[in-house]
């Protein structure tokens, strides 16, 4: 597939690249320890030593924002991976074969989508406990319907095209027709779905952690940090600003990518 360059794509690429570098670096190294407290450096405003100041325990906010973003990033990635793989599997089989299984599965998807994902996730996580793996799996499963739906629609549209009939005449196996002939045609709708899904996952995880059913201390995610920072809004506003800013940047970068991809793949082109 070809994606034509455009302003959205370029900006999104640069932003994502910078953020990804910072986040990946953060897995191995941060300017200060993320949990290292320092009584002498409590609630310092931003400076050259502490780019985003320090919190009430004297911890470097910049270091914590980076590592929190890392947690959020990993969860969002995992959620999208689970949702996308599950959605592609279900969507392409339903779209290609149709029938009763298709009708039933799509109704189930409708039912799941009818509830806000975050609400369902809250219920599940409060039943089975928080923690990274549970949140990831739970949100991932809840994200499957949205992917399944777009894939199913595309596969059902492409299934009876002349070029697929040609492939059948050639004697190409059904599996290969699905994987190699049909699936690439779903990429133009799948890519935006992946980026939008990523953003929704970042926000869902942040919301859950903010509500206290997500990532548990001492591990930090952007959501749990945003909750902490509320308490010190008066004494250390840079904590909230830094954390909130990171969420905005992350979502913005991926949104730009998404918009760029959609414009660059020329939707509506034959």
């Amino acid at each position: 597939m070809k994606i034509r360059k455009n302003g959205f794509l370029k900006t999104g690429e640069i932003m994502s690249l910078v953020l990804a570098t910072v986040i990946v670096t953060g897995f191995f190294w941060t300017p200060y320890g993320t949990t290292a407290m320092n009584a002498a450096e409590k609630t310092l405003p931003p400076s050259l030593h502490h780019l985003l100041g320090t919190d009430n325990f004297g911890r470097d906010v910049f270091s914590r924002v980076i590592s929190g973003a890392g947690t959020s990033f990993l969860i969002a990635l995992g959620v999208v991976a689970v949702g996308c793989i599950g959605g592609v599997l279900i969507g392409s089989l339903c779209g290609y074969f149709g029938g009763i299984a298709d009708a039933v599965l799509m109704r189930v998807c409708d039912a799941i989508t009818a509830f806000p994902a975050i609400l369902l996730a809250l219920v599940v996580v409060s039943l089975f406990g928080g923690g990274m793996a549970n949140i990831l799996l739970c949100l991932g499963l809840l994200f499957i319907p949205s992917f399944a739906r777009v894939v199913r629609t595309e596969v059902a549209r492409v299934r009876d095209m002349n070029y697929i009939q040609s492939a059948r005449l050639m004697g190409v196996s059904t599996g290969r027709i699905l994987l190699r002939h049909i699936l690439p045609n779903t990429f133009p709708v799948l890519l935006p779905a992946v980026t939008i899904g990523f953003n929704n996952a970042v926000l869902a995880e942040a919301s859950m952690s903010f509500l206290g059913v997500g990532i548990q201390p001492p591990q930090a995610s952007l959501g749990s940090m945003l909750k902490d920072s509320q308490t010190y809004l008066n004494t250390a506003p840079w904590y909230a600003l830094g954390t909130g800013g990171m969420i905005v940047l992350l979502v913005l970068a991926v949104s730009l990518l998404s918009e760029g991809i959609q414009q660059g793949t020329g939707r509506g082109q034959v």
Partner: protein
Amino acid sequence: MTESVLEVRHVSSYYTKARRLSGTHSGFGERDMQVLRDVTFSIQKGETLGLVGESGSGKTTLCRAVLGLGMDYEGEIIHHTDHPQMVFQDPYSSLNPARTVGWTLREALRAGERRGKRASRPLVPEILGQVGLSEEYIDRYPYELSGGQRQRVCIAAAVIQRPQLILLDEPVSALDVTIQAQILRLLVRLKKEFGLSYLFISHDLNVIYQICDRVLVMKQGEIVESGDVRQVYEDPQHDYTKMLLAAVD
């Protein structure tokens, strides 16, 4: 005695309206629509058999029945060759938009090889040359091609598998007259080169006259006249054929 590559005997076919509206009570008063009525013909080796008829007369349906593309029928269809190929009328939905010309041709080549047609296979650049496209088209996507160029690629994809029979469903109807003539010449040349047989479909008797040996005239799913193309063209027997001829002039 010539050998035939395809025999179609007393084939009838229906479209079921109820099937299309599954889940609703539409069976009452909605009768199945018959599209093919007792169609019988055969195609000889090396022959170009024309099939002419108005739009909606059942020509595409006949192809779908012959090739087993999800069309139920009554009667007998006997293939004396394996894997006949088809070139479709609409060149815009005949090539995978997500794949390059080269990929599509390699996929067709691979399919042919899996059937043991390894010997004397034409290679991708060679077959492109055969259909009048240069090697630089290998990396092109379908949206970068004109209708005529797409149709050339479709023809190449069919031929590269070394079939003996190709069904051409109005392969030039969507093209300009000058491009039509080029494609027709190409088809004639490929037929000689690769020893092909064609079922050539058109709603235009003039085009049929240029390329076919024999012709079948189809009206509402029924073969109403058949015979040597010159004979039918010069001395039509059925009123419907006369009407088609009048439309040509």
